[in-house]
C-alpha cells in the first residue's frame, strides 16, 4: 500500500471490487481496503441474483455458483403456493451464489487489473480539507496510515460509516431496516431449482422469508422483518426458528448468519467533493426484494467511469462527480428502485387476507421475462382491482 492513489475504495464487497477493477482498468492508480481479514466472509446475504444481471458483469462459473434456478414460488399467508416459471420452460433464470468465493473472485480480478488490495485494514476517519474529502486514515494492526486519493469511493456496505464521517446522513429509518437472520441448512427436502418466498404477518412482518437452494438437499433459509416489528421475543431469529422447527425439523444448520438490509430510498445525493458512494452504502438496495449484488456492481462500475473522467479533467468536485449520481438515477436500475419502493410501500400495508386474495388469483404464472416488474404486471393483469388500488403506480408500469 502506498500513500497516494488516484482512487481509494473503502470496502471489498461486490460494489467495491467492481469499482476497483473498473478504475484500475481505466489506468487509474487504485487501492481497495477491506476491514475484515478475509474477502467474502462472513457472508451477510441470501446470495440470489438474476441470470441476466450477473452476466452483465461476469460469466457464471461453477467455482462460485451453488445452484442454478429455473423458477420461483410465492407462498401466501394461508399456505397457497403460486409458481412462477419462465415462458421458456426449464431455462435458467437465476443463480444462488457462493459469496465467499464470488467476492474473492471479484477482488482477485481487481488485483489482476492492477489495483492494490489491503485486508484487515479499516478506514477510521476521512482526511478532509475545506470540506472536501482528500483521503482516509487507515488502521492496520494498530498502526494508522494516511492515504490520500483524488477520489474516495465509499463501498462500506450497510453500516455506511465513512460517508457519515464526511457529514452525509446515511442513517436508515427503523421501519426501513430489514432485520435479518439466515441458516445455511442441509439434509432438507426442497425443490433444488426453485427459490421460495413466504409472505405474511405471522411469518415475516413487513418482510419475507426465503428458501434459496444451495444444492439438492441444502439451502439458505432466511428471513427479513421490518425493524419496527422487531423486539424482545419476536426478533428475526425467533421467526426463523419458528419456521425451521415447523418446516425442516430434521434439517441441520451448518452456518448461522445475521445482518441488516436497507429498504429505504437511496441517499438524496451520492457524491460530495472528492467522494462517491456506491452499493449498500448508498442505500441502492432494491427495496422490494432486498437484492443488492447487481445494484452494487452497477453503481461500482459507473462510479469508476465517472471518477476516471473527472480525474482526467483535474476536477473532482461534487459538481464534476454529479454525472454518476444522475446516471444511476436515470438508469433502468434507478427507475426499478423508485418503482419497487412504491410497490413495497403498498405491499407492507396489506393484510394477510388481502395477500391471500392476490396470490389465489393465479396458481401458476408464466413470465415472459423473469423479473419483479413482469411479476407485478402479471399480478395486476389477473387482479384488475389492483389497478385502482395502485393508481398512478399501476399506470406507470404499462
Amino acid at each position: 500500500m502506498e500513500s497516494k492513489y488516484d482512487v481509494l475504495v473503502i470496502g471489498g464487497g461486490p460494489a467495491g471490487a467492481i469499482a476497483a477493477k473498473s478504475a484500475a482498468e481505466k489506468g487509474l492508480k487504485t487501492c481497495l481496503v477491506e476491514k475484515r481479514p478475509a474477502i467474502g466472509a462472513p457472508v451477510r446475504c441470501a446470495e440470489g441474483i438474476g441470470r441476466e444481471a450477473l452476466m452483465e458483469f461476469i460469466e457464471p462459473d461453477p467455482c462460485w455458483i451453488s445452484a442454478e434456478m429455473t423458477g420461483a414460488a410465492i407462498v401466501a399467508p394461508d399456505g397457497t403456493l403460486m409458481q412462477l416459471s419462465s415462458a421458456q420452460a426449464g431455462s435458467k433464470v437465476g443463480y444462488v451464489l457462493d459469496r465467499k468465493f464470488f467476492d474473492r473472485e471479484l477482488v482477485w480480478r481487481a488485483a489482476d487489473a492492477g489495483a492494490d488490495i489491503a485486508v484487515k485494514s479499516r478506514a477510521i476517519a476521512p482526511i478532509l480539507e475545506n470540506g472536501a474529502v482528500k483521503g482516509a486514515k487507515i488502521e492496520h494492526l494498530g498502526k494508522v496510515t494516511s492515504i490520500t486519493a483524488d477520489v474516495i469511493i465509499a463501498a462500506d456496505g450497510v453500516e455506511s460509516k465513512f460517508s457519515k464521517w464526511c457529514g452525509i446522513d446515511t442513517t436508515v429509518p427503523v421501519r426501513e431496516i430489514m432485520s435479518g437472520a439466515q441458516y445455511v441448512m442441509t439434509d432438507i427436502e426442497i425443490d433444488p431449482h426453485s427459490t421460495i418466498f413466504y409472505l405474511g404477518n405471522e411469518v415475516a412482518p413487513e418482510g419475507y422469508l426465503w428458501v434459496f437452494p444451495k444444492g439438492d438437499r441444502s439451502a439458505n433459509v432466511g428471513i427479513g422483518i421490518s425493524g419496527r416489528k422487531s423486539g424482545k421475543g419476536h426478533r428475526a431469529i425467533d421467526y426463523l426458528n419458528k419456521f425451521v422447527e415447523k418446516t425442516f425439523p430434521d434439517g441441520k444448520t451448518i452456518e448461522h448468519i445475521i445482518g441488516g438490509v436497507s429498504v429505504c430510498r437511496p441517499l438524496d445525493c451520492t457524491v460530495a467533493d472528492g467522494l462517491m458512494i456506491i452499493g449498500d452504502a448508498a442505500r441502492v438496495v432494491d427495496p422490494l426484494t432486498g437484492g443488492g449484488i447487481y445494484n452494487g456492481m452497477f453503481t461500482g462500475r459507473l462510479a469508476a467511469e465517472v471518477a476516471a473522467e473527472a480525474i482526467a479533467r483535474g476536477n473532482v468536485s461534487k459538481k464534476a462527480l454529479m454525472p454518476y449520481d444522475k446516471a444511476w438515477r436515470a438508469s433502468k436500475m434507478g427507475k426499478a428502485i423508485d418503482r419497487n419502493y412504491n410497490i413495497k410501500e403498498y405491499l407492507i400495508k396489506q393484510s394477510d387476507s388481502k395477500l391471500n386474495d392476490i396470490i389465489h388469483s393465479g396458481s401458476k404464472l408464466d413470465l415472459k421475462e423473469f423479473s419483479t416488474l413482469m411479476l407485478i404486471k402479471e399480478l395486476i393483469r389477473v387482479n384488475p382491482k389492483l389497478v385502482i388500488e395502485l393508481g398512478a403506480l399501476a399506470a406507470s408500469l404499462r
Partner: protein
Amino acid sequence: MLKVHRDICGYCGCCVSVCPEGALELIDAYLSVEEKCTDCGICAKVCPVGALEARHGK
C-alpha cells in the same frame, strides 16, 4: 450506556446502520460503542438476535 452481550452479538452491523448518533462501529469481530451513545435503544430494537440492551432507553 448500551450493553453489548458479546456472547450473543454476531457482529453483523445491522445496529450500526440505524444509529442516529453514529456511535456504533463494527471493528471486525466486536462492536464498539462510543461515548456519544445516548442509550436511545433503537439498535437494541432492530438487533436480529437481541444482543444489545439499552439500560435506560425505550
